[in-house]
């Protein structure tokens, strides 16, 4: 066991001696996972006892579980003892020193996405303080929010400053025992985002991780918790349209949303991690548990996601519709190209009366990629007059890729209604020729057709995000026809 090795013991002591914030270099744990590693993480982060206990419980449960059955995914086994579970925020020592050291291909992509020069450096992992004055932006931003009583900070900061909120809500939507990756995340998560919107407050701006300082490297086990008190509203943007430089192979995040009476949470994601090369080498495995709890009556949670990255994506943002008249929405675009595999969808669990949910899923496959939609609609015993409408459209580019749809329905209340529509189409040579005959280049034609196909989902994204997402889509499908 690595825990008993001299190595780790001395490492632990050394870390403690030098302290967490001052000696950055020594802050990476050797690979391996056991209870001591978890104690170490908790200790380094000065966490209260309840949190350490919570982590350990999750870990013990994790040990009793087995990896999920991969369904449509074709995956190499992951060696969990080969991963290092704690690494301090990266500094300029790890990353490139200037833009000159960054892969020109990456820079070209940023340019095509229209990302301002100074931000490109930050995204590429160049030490940001020197080039990008994010602090001043973030400060004005924070002032404005705190006036409204809104809390928006790194998760670890919330643990220090608002432990009562964390204790009350953490794991209340996704329990430590929920699934294999959620248990793992609960045991070892290092940081993430925390949002609290007080009663009756409408958050005056889109909250985006982009503006969050001190948390550029939240690592591979990210934890996000958003709480919207009665009558409040918040729109949260996760991620970035630019491909992110990232050495972590496995990502297992957990996102929990809680909407109380009459509250609304809108959660938008653009995910563009490295998908691996044309031959399927490299790339990120993305296993995320995202769940929203419409705890109060008349509450609403909507998930909007644009997924173009990762080698393997396994993700089902879900809604628990507990409150009467609560509303859940899921709007998704998943693009797979080359050898990418995506297995995504949603779960809508209707528990309250007159609850409603809408699912719109757009899957695009090119190259040899496989794209699966998997959705569960559950109508509980008490979900009288509940309604769901599901629409799944697949677009195929070329004839070596695949699209699969797996809708599951469980209806326990006779007055509940579930509707499902599904279509599959192929970008036709005739559509492309029509566009080209009018003078539109093949590349523009493909992006136009794809964007047309995805329109209903783009409409759900915040304006600036939608434009970037459209460019991104075009980029990730570049050269996939002809």
């Amino acid at each position: 066991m690595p825990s008993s090795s001299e190595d780790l013991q001395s490492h632990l002591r050394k870390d403690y001696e030098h302290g967490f914030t001052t000696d950055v270099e020594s802050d990476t744990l050797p690979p391996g996972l056991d209870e001591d590693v978890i104690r170490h993480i908790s200790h380094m982060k000065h966490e209260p006892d309840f949190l350490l206990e919570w982590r350990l419980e999750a870990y013990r449960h994790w040990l009793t579980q087995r990896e999920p059955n991969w369904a449509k995914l074709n995956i190499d086994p992951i060696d969990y003892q080969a991963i290092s579970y704690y690494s301090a925020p990266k500094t300029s020592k790890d990353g490139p020193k200037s833009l000159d050291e960054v892969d020109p291909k990456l820079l070209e992509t940023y340019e095509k996405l229209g990302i301002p020069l100074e931000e490109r450096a930050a995204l590429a992992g160049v030490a940001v303080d020197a080039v990008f004055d994010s602090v001043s932006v973030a400060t004005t931003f924070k002032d404005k929010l705190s006036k409204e009583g809104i809390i928006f900070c790194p998760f670890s900061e919330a643990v220090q400053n608002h432990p009562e909120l964390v204790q009350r809500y953490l794991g209340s939507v996704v329990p430590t025992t929920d699934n294999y990756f959620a248990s793992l995340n609960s045991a070892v998560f290092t940081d993430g985002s925390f949002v609290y919107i007080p009663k009756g407050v409408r958050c005056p701006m889109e909250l985006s991780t982009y503006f969050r300082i001190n948390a550029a490297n939240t690592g591979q086990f990210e934890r996000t918790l958003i709480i919207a008190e009665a009558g409040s509203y918040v729109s949260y943007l996760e991620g970035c349209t630019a491909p992110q430089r990232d050495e972590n192979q496995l990502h297992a995040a957990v996102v929990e949303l809680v909407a109380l009476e009459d509250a609304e949470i809108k959660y938008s994601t653009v995910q563009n991690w490295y998908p691996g090369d044309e031959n399927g080498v490299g790339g990120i495995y993305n296993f995320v548990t995202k769940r929203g709890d419409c705890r109060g009556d008349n509450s609403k949670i909507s998930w909007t996601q644009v997924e173009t990255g990762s080698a393997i994506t396994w993700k089902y943002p879900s809604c628990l519709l507990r409150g009467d008249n609560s509303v859940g929405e899921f709007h998704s675009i998943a693009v797979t190209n080359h050898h990418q595999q995506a297995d995504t969808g949603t779960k809508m669990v209707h528990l309250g009366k007159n609850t409603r949910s809408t699912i719109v899923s757009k899957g695009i496959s090119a190259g040899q990629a496989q794209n699966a939609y998997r959705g569960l609609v559950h109508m509980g015993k008490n979900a009288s007059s509940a309604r769901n409408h599901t629409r799944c459209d697949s677009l195929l580019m070329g004839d070596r890729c695949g699209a699969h749809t797996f809708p599951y329905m469980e209806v326990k209340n006779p007055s509940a209604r579930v509707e499902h529509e599904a279509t599959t189409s192929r970008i036709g040579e005739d559509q492309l020729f029509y566009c080209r005959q009018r003078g539109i280049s093949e590349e523009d034609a493909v992006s136009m057709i794809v964007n047309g196909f995805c329109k209903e989902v783009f409409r759900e994204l915040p304006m600036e995000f939608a434009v970037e997402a459209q460019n991104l889509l075009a980029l990730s499908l570049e050269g996939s026809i002809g």
Partner: protein
Amino acid sequence: MLEISNLHVSIGDQTILKGIDLTVKPGEVHAIMGPNGSGKSTLSHVLAGREGYEVIEGSVRYEGKDLLGLSPEARAHAGIFLGFQYPVEIPGVNNMYFLKAAINARRKANGLKELDAFDFIQMAKKKAGLVGLDESLLQRAVNEGFSGGEKKRNEIFQMAVLEPQLAILDETDSGLDIDALRIVAEGVNALRDPERAVILVTHYQRLLDYIVPDYVHVLSDGRIVRSGGRELALTLEEKGYGWLKEAAAT
């Protein structure tokens, strides 16, 4: 403007066009008639650059240059427009957005300034009125859910906006009611100009009452078997195509 000489085209191992010769000069309107399956659409597609056809012999020159080496979009930029026999639906893509992208791609390729949204909308609305296209269709997705006649009108509307040098209209009159036919004809006539030319593929001489052609050609089994003036269409209407085949056989 357009010189087609000895054009042989095949699809797979089947030869469809078997030696077409046709010269179109600026200002002229040529009608091409002929039985189903004779190769009219094939000729139109080959001129517009559609993939899947193999030119096995012959050449096509447009404005003095080889046409066959150009991509479909390059031909469009050079002023060639094809009105499709079966216009294609593009779900989710706004009709106006599509056309604006088309006109600006062409302007850009020709070194002209792109039209801004305001100028484009003004112009497009005027043209829509001209060809009797309901304005509500402008904001719908390209051809999606359009009736057969609306699709054909939309083709003419696009032509009116793009103002091509050479318009090839493949059975644009099929499926139109009488009023629409007249309006479409007016659209084409409005485009007539000493610098422009039109190739009209049609089955009905009725269209030629409205658009008076300079020449009428009969395409049969991949060859032009007869060319003549306006009166040839009238003879065809009366006698059908049978007599031409007999004439060709003797």
